[in-house]
C-alpha cells in the first residue's frame, strides 16, 4: 500500500494541480474557454427571486368545452341528429338525443377516425370520453386529452412568461417547466420583484367591445366593472378586436392634455375590423377591456382606418409602460398563480457569503489546529491533504459550474470536519498495528489495508444520504447535497492518493524510527 510508481506520482500531482487551477479561475480571469469557468452562486447568495407559477387551467377547459358544445350541435345537425338539453356542468358536457340515435352518436365519438374527437394512436386514447349515464350522454376529457390540453397551455404560457421577463430586462433568467402545469422562474439579481410579480400575475387578455344598452344583443352581454372597481357598464360579448391583433404597443405622452397613454398599432385584419367598427359605431362607446375590467370606454368620434390608436386611462408612466409591455408580449392562455416565492435581497446575499466564508475559515482553522496538536507530523500531512481536498472540491464544482448555495457552503464546512475521519481511521489503525509489528513499513501497510472496509462503509452511508437529498431536496438544500456528495469523492481521492503519497514518503525516509506516529 505504500509503494507509488513514478507515473502514479506524476498523475496525482497533475490531477491535483489541474483542479487547483480550475478552482482558482473563480478568483482570476483566464481568457480561456476551459479555465474561464465559475461557480454559480445560488439565489440565496447573489440575491434574486425564485417564483413557482401554477397555471390555472380551469378557464381553458371551460372555454374548450364551450366551443365544443357549438361544434357538437353543428356537427350532428348536419347528420340530422337532434341534440337536446346540452349543458356544461363541472367540466363535463351533458346532452340528450333520441334513443334510436344514441348508439350512432357513441360510435362517432369512439371511431378512431372521428372528425370531432381526435385520436392519439401513441397513447391509444381519444381526446374525449363519452359515457351513457342513462339519463343523458356525458362527454368529458380523457386523461390523455387533459394532459395534452395542459401541456399545450403550458407551452404557450412559458413563451409569454419568457417574453415578459425578457422585456423587463433581467440578466440570465432561468425559466423552466415543472410538471405539466407549473413554470419555475429564477431571476438573479432582480431589483424590483414586485413589478415582475404583478406582470406575471396578469393574463393581459385585451378586448375592444361596444358598450351597449341593448340586452338583446345576439352575442350576449355582460356587466363589467371599471378599473376603479366602482363604476359599471354593460358590454357586448362581441369582440371587435383582441390583443392578438396588436402589432405593437408603446407608452407615450399625449402632448395635448399632458396624459400618459398607450399607443398601439394593429395588424391588417385588426385594422380592417377596427375601421369598420369605428365607422359603423360613431357616437357609441367602445370599451377597452383588460382581464375582465374596463380600462376606459371612449366615445367614437371618427372612423379610425389607420390601424393605430391609443388607450388612455389615467396611467402613470410606470403603469403605461407595464401595460404596453403586457400587450406587446401577448396574453397568457390561462391565469397564473404564484404558489411559491423566495426572494433574497442582494445585501442579505452578500452577508450570507461573508458569514459562510468566515465560518469556513474558522471551521477549517479549528480542525487544522486540532489535527496538528493530535498527530503532529501526520496531522500536518492530513492538513495539507485537507487543503488540497478543498481545492479539488471547489475545482470540481467550478468545472461543472455547479450552483453554490448557503447550505452548500455548510456542506463544504461539514466535509472539512468529516474528511479527517478516513485519515484518523487509518492512523489509529496504524498505531494499533505498531503495537505488535515492529517493522514500520509493514505496520503502515496493514493499517491502510485493514481500515479500508470501515472507511468505504462509512463514506457510502453519507453518500447515500446525499444522493437521496439531491433527488428529493429543492433549491438551496440541493446545493448542500451536491457539495456533501462531491466532497466524499474528493475526500477519498485525497486520502488514498495524496495523503498516502505523503505518508509513504515520510515513512520510507524514517523506516527505522521508533514511535513513528
Amino acid at each position, binding site marked *: 500500500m505504500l509503494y507509488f510508481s513514478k507515473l502514479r506520482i506524476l498523475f496525482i500531482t497533475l490531477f491535483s494541480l489541474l483542479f487547483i487551477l480550475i478552482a482558482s479561475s473563480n478568483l482570476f480571469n483566464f481568457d480561456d474557454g476551459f479555465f474561464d469557468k465559475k461557480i454559480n452562486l445560488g439565489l440565496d447568495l447573489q440575491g434574486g427571486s425564485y417564483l413557482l407559477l401554477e397555471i390555472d387551467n380551469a378557464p381553458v377547459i371551460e372555454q374548450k368545452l364551450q366551443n365544443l358544445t357549438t361544434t357538437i350541435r353543428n356537427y350532428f345537425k348536419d347528420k340530422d341528429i337532434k341534440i337536446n338539453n346540452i349543458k356544461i356542468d363541472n367540466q363535463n358536457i351533458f346532452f340528450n338525443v333520441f334513443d334510436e340515435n344514441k348508439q350512432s352518436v357513441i360510435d362517432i365519438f369512439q371511431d378512431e377516425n372521428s372528425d370531432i374527437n381526435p385520436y392519439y394512436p401513441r397513447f391509444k386514447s381519444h381526446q374525449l370520453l363519452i359515457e351513457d349515464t342513462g339519463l343523458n350522454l356525458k362527454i368529458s376529457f380523457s386523461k390523455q386529452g387533459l394532459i395534452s390540453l395542459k401541456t399545450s397551455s403550458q407551452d404557450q404560457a412559458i413563451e409569454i412568461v419568457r417574453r415578459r421577463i425578457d422585456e423587463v430586462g433581467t440578466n440570465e433568467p432561468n425559466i423552466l417547466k415543472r410538471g405539466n402545469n407549473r413554470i419555475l422562474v429564477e431571476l438573479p439579481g432582480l431589483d424590483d420583484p414586485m413589478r415582475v410579480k404583478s406582470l406575471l400575475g396578469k393574463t393581459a387578455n385585451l378586448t375592444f367591445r361596444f358598450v351597449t344598452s341593448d340586452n338583446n344583443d345576439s352575442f350576449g352581454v355582460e356587466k363589467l366593472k371599471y378599473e376603479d372597481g366602482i363604476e359599471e357598464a354593460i358590454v357586448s360579448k362581441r369582440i371587435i378586436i383582441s390583443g392578438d391583433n396588436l402589432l405593437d404597443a408603446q407608452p407615450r405622452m399625449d402632448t395635448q392634455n399632458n396624459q400618459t397613454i398607450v399607443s398601439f398599432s394593429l395588424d391588417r385584419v385588426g385594422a380592417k375590423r377596427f375601421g369598420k367598427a369605428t365607422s359603423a359605431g360613431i357616437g357609441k362607446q367602445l370599451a377597452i377591456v383588460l382581464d375582465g375590467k374596463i380600462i376606459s370606454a371612449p366615445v367614437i368620434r371618427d372612423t379610425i382606418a389607420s390601424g393605430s390608436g391609443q388607450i388612455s386611462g389615467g396611467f402613470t408612466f410606470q403603469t403605461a409602460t407595464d401595460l404596453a409591455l403586457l400587450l406587446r408580449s401577448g396574453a397568457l392562455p390561462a391565469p397564473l398563480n404564484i404558489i*411559491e416565492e423566495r426572494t433574497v435581497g442582494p445585501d442579505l446575499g452578500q452577508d450570507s457569503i461573508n458569514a459562510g466564508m*468566515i465560518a469556513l475559515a474558522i*471551521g477549517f482553522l479549528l480542525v487544522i489546529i486540532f489535527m496538528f496538536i493530535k498527530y503532529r507530523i501526520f496531522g500536518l500531512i492530513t492538513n495539507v491533504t485537507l487543503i488540497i481536498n478543498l481545492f479539488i472540491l471547489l475545482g470540481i464544482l467550478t468545472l461543472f459550474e455547479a450552483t453554490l448555495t448557503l447550505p452548500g457552503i455548510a456542506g463544504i464546512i461539514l466535509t472539512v470536519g468529516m474528511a479527517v*475521519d478516513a485519515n484518523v481511521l487509518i492512523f489509529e489503525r496504524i498505531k494499533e498495528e505498531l503495537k505488535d509489528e515492529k517493522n514500520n513499513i509493514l505496520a503502515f501497510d496493514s493499517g491502510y489495508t485493514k481500515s479500508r472496509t470501515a472507511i468505504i462503509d462509512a463514506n457510502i452511508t453519507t453518500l447515500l444520504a446525499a444522493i437521496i437529498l439531491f433527488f428529493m431536496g429543492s433549491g438551496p438544500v440541493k446545493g448542500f447535497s451536491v457539495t456533501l456528495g462531491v466532497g466524499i469523492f474528493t475526500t477519498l481521492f485525497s486520502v488514498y492518493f495524496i495523503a498516502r503519497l505523503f505518508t509513504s514518503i515520510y515513512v520510507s525516509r524514517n523506516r527505522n524510527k521508533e514511535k513513528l506516529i
Partner: protein
Amino acid sequence: MIAFNKHYNLFNIFSTFLIVVSLLLLIFKGLNFGIDFKGGTLIELRSSDTKINVSSLRDKFSQMDLGDVSVKKFGNDIDYLIKFENKGDKKNIIKEIKTNLDKSFGNNFNFRRVENVGPKVSAELLKSGVIAISLSLAIMLFYIWIRFEWQFSLGAILALFHDVIVTLGVFSLFGLEINLSIIAAVLTIVGYSMNDTVVIFDRIRENLRKYSDIKIYELTNISINETLSRTIITSATTLLALLAIYLFGGEILKGFSLAMILGVVFGTYSSIYIANTVLVRLRVSQKTVLREEDNNN
C-alpha cells in the same frame, strides 16, 4: 480501557426514556413547522432607524389585518423576522405592507428576504421531506442488511431511529422551527450516525472472528475502546466545523447547524450505547458471523 459495558443497562433505560419523552412531545406538543411546511409568508426586515423597536413593529403589523402575525428580532437589534399565515387571496400583500410601514415609520425598512409558500406547495414539500427521510432510513436498512448480519442491522437501525427521534424531540421541546434545511440536517444525521455505528460494528465483526472465547459483552467493550480515539477525534472535528457554522454562519444556518450538532452528539452516544447493547441482548457470538459466511459459501 474504559468499561462502557458496565453502564449498558443504565443507558438503555435512559435511551428508552429519551425516546418515550421525545415521542410524547412529538405527539402532544408537535413540531413547530416553518412556512416551508405550513405555508405562509416570511419577511426579513432590516431597519435603519434604531428607534424602531420590536413592540412598535408588532403593534403596526397587528393593525394590518394579516391574522396571526409573529414579529421577532432576528439575530441582532436591527433585523426582524415577520411570519404570518396566508389569508384569503391577497395578491399584493408585500406591496401593501411596504406602503403601510413606510407610512408609519418613514422609509426605513429594507426587505431583505421575502418567502411565500402556498398551501399546495407546503403540503408537497412536507410530503417529499417525509419521503426523503423514510427513504434514507430504508436505504440504510437495506445497505446494512447486505453488509452485516441481521442482529447488526437491527442495532444500527435502532440507533438511527433513536438519533432522529430524539433530535426531533429536542426541536419539539424548545419549539425550534422545522424547515427545509432541518430535513437536510436530519438526512445528514442519518448518514453520520450510520457511519459511526458501522465503524464500531466493523471492528466487532473482526474481533468476533479473531476471538472465540470472549463473550459479546466483553467483546463490544473491547471494540468500542479500540475505535474510541477515532470516534472522539472524528466527532470533535465534525463538531468544531459545525460550531463554526453555528456561531459564524449567520442566522439562516443556525437551526441547521444546531440540528446537526445534536445529531452528532446523539449519533456518537447511540453507536456506543444502543447499537452495541442490541448485539449483547441478541447474544451475538462467533457463530453468528461464521454461520452467515457458511451460508454465503
